[in-house]
């Protein structure tokens, strides 16, 4: 018998779009693991639909998206829509990448729960995921 700590929850880290740089995504994935999350990583260049389908199959409590390509408005919106189409709009989506400050309010209005930029401290990212997961777990019907 062990007394290994139990995971905080399950999260999916995805990289939509065409850019192939996944250092940021992997960094966050590892930080989440080291904080006690079960992290499903889907790899680079995924379509919004693929990310939504994986999030549903893996029954995650939050989805984190990492983007560098600049097409963040469209890609984030596409993932939110794909989740809605998969009847999974309750799963919170958090996004990070090189995102201009002025775009952040719009992204939040779109439905993104949190937006991280290269300057965001990792502790802030972790606590945003913790809060998102906890809230999602509380709100679940079954």
């Amino acid at each position: 018998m062990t007394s290994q700590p139990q995971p905080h929850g399950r999260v999916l880290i995805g990289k939509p779009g065409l850019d192939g740089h996944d250092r940021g995504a992997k960094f966050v994935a590892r930080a989440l693991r080291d904080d006690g999350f079960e992290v499903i990583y889907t790899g680079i260049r995924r379509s919004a639909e693929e990310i939504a389908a994986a999030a549903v199959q893996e029954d995650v409590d939050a989805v984190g998206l990492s983007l560098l390509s600049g097409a963040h408005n469209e890609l984030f919106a596409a993932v939110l829509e794909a989740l809605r189409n998969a009847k999974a709009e309750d799963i919170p989506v958090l996004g990070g990448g090189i995102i201009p400050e002025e775009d952040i309010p719009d992204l939040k209005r779109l439905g993104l729960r949190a937006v991280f930029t290269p300057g965001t401290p990792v502790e802030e990212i972790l606590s945003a995921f913790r809060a998102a997961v906890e809230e999602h777990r509380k709100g679940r019907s079954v």
Partner: protein
Amino acid sequence: MSPGADTLLAGVREKDPRAIGRAISIVEDGGPLAASILAALEHPCCEAALVIGVTGPGGAGKSTLTQALIAHYRTEGRRIGVVAVDPSSTLSGGALLGDRIRMMRHALDEDVVIRSMATRGRAGGICAAAGAAVRVMAYSGCEIVLLETVGVGQAELAVVHLADLTALVLAPGLGDDVQAMKAGLIELVDAIVVNKGDQPAAQALLAEMQAVAAATHRAVFCTSASDGTGVAQLAAGLGELADTLRQSDRIALRRQAARSIEVMDWALELLRPELKAAVAALGPLSGEPQALARLAIARLKATEE
């Protein structure tokens, strides 16, 4: 049965991806609805599904081969499940589950149900949770469930006992520690797959494995999972093997053995919180540890009578 479990099970039956995902989490976490869901999974369709273990060292190509087998079975129109087990970090309890990266080709195919699972610090092993996930998939109509697990570590390897038959995936160039673990793994499996057959060094490994296989009555296959070479032969070979095992009742015997492992896992899992409370109730602990453990167990039994 609670209405929540009823609705969820109906959803699983109708292949609703969300219901399947939730049902697996509930049985994995042992939540309030778990008992009713687990009871419903005792269903003939769950016995009909064939469970194929895929094990071997990290980097041998298990996930890529799983992907290739999925692609093959899909051309036959079969609905497929995959449970991919990876170790949890003992320090944080977290896990990085990356097997799915190699299987994204099937992400939009609703007849391919993929689930990543971490070993977690379970009191029992992972077989209770993995076995339940396999049955949820079977209940949703999966005819074959592939169980990927890395062939190191007791917890990870225990998963192999859930499978009706298991293939060991090896590849050239994986190093000396793999060499050392090979013999132990070969004992546990029915077939040996030399993967990365496109690499020249695979030929020597294949020759070595053919010699081992001749001595131990294992089937040997050579694949190149990344381009699909040899995968149809492997699938056919596994199918024949399953038929042979079924005819000789070996699959029935293995399932009985798997049941006893799952029951033991659940027993430990369910007992752990009670034991923990009983130990805590002893108060400040000083003295001989084993005697104290016996005392805690004795008191626990006494409260139940």
